[in-house]
């Protein structure tokens, strides 16, 4: 019986049907994986600014330094969130300071964007990961807009500058990005990590004991004041002035930031990180971050940590902010690529070899 009767029309019809089912499934799988079709994927968010890309480094914000310290919460926040981070008196932290360039060997003056990432692990084994820049909001309302902006603002090979027509076309589609481009163009370069404010541009939800959800955004507000301009100018002559400054300061004293929560009102947008909430929204200091020392990132624990901001502890939830999901995917690809290089022994200066 288990022989194919190739003279039967029925056999051929059945074989055709089976081929159609198998091909449909394979095509759907390949499309979902992003191997076929024009669908934009999180892989598109990850670019490698230098070729060949140095093995073992982060694809974005590759130049950085690890730090350790602690976080002491303000216990008043316990009424808004059940997260252990707001009740455990002293939480050890691991983090990373970095600059916003694609080249892990860039000079510190090559960008105005600087970042702070951190991982808080509480005694109930819950984790809170953050990745923040010194920029108070995101350029576009969705990840497609971010991809479009990168394309539109890329330097034209002929002039070395972005093509104004392409920028104008981009702004027609994503008008919200105009204020971001103006703000970043006018921004003064940071003079130190210690005096910078770092923002979680995405919205999260605090969940209280009775299940009430409060949308929040936050910033890390420094205790340290800006340096006088003259002193800054002198420092900026060296390639690593931001990291050198951080190292020297920490040899003398720890650095502190307040975790400042901004509480949304009912109609504030939670799904659009390009829209800052009004300045008069209630702000609460949720705790104080103390950075005590730094370790070279080739040897520090931060090297092998993916500071994916969607990883939040019980008592805090992600919102419907679409950038958060896209960031999580992009960070994961970057993490997988560099851990692959490190794990397979291909990394050199990224691991201090």
């Amino acid at each position, binding site marked *: 019986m*288990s022989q194919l009767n190739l003279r039967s029309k029925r056999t051929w019809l059945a074989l055709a*049907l*089976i081929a159609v089912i*198998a091909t449909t499934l394979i095509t759907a799988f390949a499309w979902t994986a992003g191997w076929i079709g024009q669908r934009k994927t999180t892989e598109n968010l990850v670019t490698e600014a230098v070729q060949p890309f140095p093995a073992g480094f982060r694809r974005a914000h590759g130049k950085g330094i690890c730090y350790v310290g602690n976080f002491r919460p303000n216990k008043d926040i316990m009424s808004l969130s059940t997260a252990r981070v707001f009740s455990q008196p002293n939480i050890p932290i691991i983090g990373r300071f970095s600059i916003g360039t694609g080249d892990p060997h860039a000079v510190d003056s090559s960008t105005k964007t600087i970042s702070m990432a951190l991982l808080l692990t509480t005694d109930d084994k819950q984790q809170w990961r953050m990745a923040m820049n010194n920029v108070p909001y995101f350029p576009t309302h969705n990840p497609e807009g971010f991809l479009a902006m990168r394309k539109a603002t890329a330097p034209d090979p002929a002039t070395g500058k972005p093509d104004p027509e392409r920028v104008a076309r981009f702004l027609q589609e994503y008008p919200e990005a105009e204020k971001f481009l103006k703000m970043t163009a006018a921004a003064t370069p940071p003079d130190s990590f210690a005096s910078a404010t770092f923002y979680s541009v995405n919205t999260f939800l605090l969940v209280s004991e009775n299940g009430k959800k409060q949308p929040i955004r936050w910033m890390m507000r420094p205790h340290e004041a800006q340096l006088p301009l003259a002193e800054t100018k002198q420092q900026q002559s060296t390639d690593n002035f931001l990291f050198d400054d951080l190292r020297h300061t920490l040899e003398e004293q720890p650095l502190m930031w307040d975790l400042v929560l901004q509480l949304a009102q009912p109609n504030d947008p939670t799904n659009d990180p390009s829209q800052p909430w009004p300045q008069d929204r209630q702000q609460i200091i949720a705790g104080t971050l103390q950075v005590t020392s730094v370790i070279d990132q080739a040897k520090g624990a931060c090297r092998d940590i993916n500071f994916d901001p969607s990883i939040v502890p019980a008592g805090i939830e992600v919102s419907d902010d*679409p950038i958060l*999901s896209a960031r*999580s*995917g992009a960070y994961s690809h970057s993490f997988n690529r560099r*851990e692959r290089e490190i794990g397979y022994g291909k990394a050199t200066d990224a691991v201090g070899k």
Partner: protein
Amino acid sequence: MNNQENTPITTHNHFNLTARILHWLMAVMILAMLFIGVGMMSSLHYRLWLINLHRPLGIAILLLVIVRLINRLRNPPPPLPASLPQWQVLAAKGSHILLYLLMFALPLIGWVMLSAAGYPIVLFKGFNLPAIAPTSPVLYAWLRDAHSILAWLLFVVVIGHLSAALMHALIYRDGVFSSMAKGSNQQE
């Protein structure tokens, strides 16, 4: 005919009810899981939603495959038809062993891999699984690649298994498909 009545145990033609329920339930779960897996690594918008499904669904598959293997060992499957050529018997047995291996390996590798990366292994909000390996870039790199490669292999084997099952259902009509699709009229 008389022979059959005397030895009912050796002539069962159908998987038992537990096996059939587990098979079809897991068929849906595994196919969904494969799509969720590649989808969460590509989707610009649905990653968080998909990854929150991926972990509990993986653990559910791991638990169900344990139950399924115990059931299979206690209730051997019906014999394949004698008319089946030897190479098809080998292909059937080989692919079934491979399917079982992959159903065990993929969730376990996923769990060890997340442990090696230092990620919290959130099963559902507020409940994390413990790490079952030390954090290590070497371990993570190897297991992360293994997780992908074995998932693609599972997809290929699932497509082959489905196609072969449809061949039995639509062309050979030798009872192989119905042994998993329905119970025996007389016995159950």
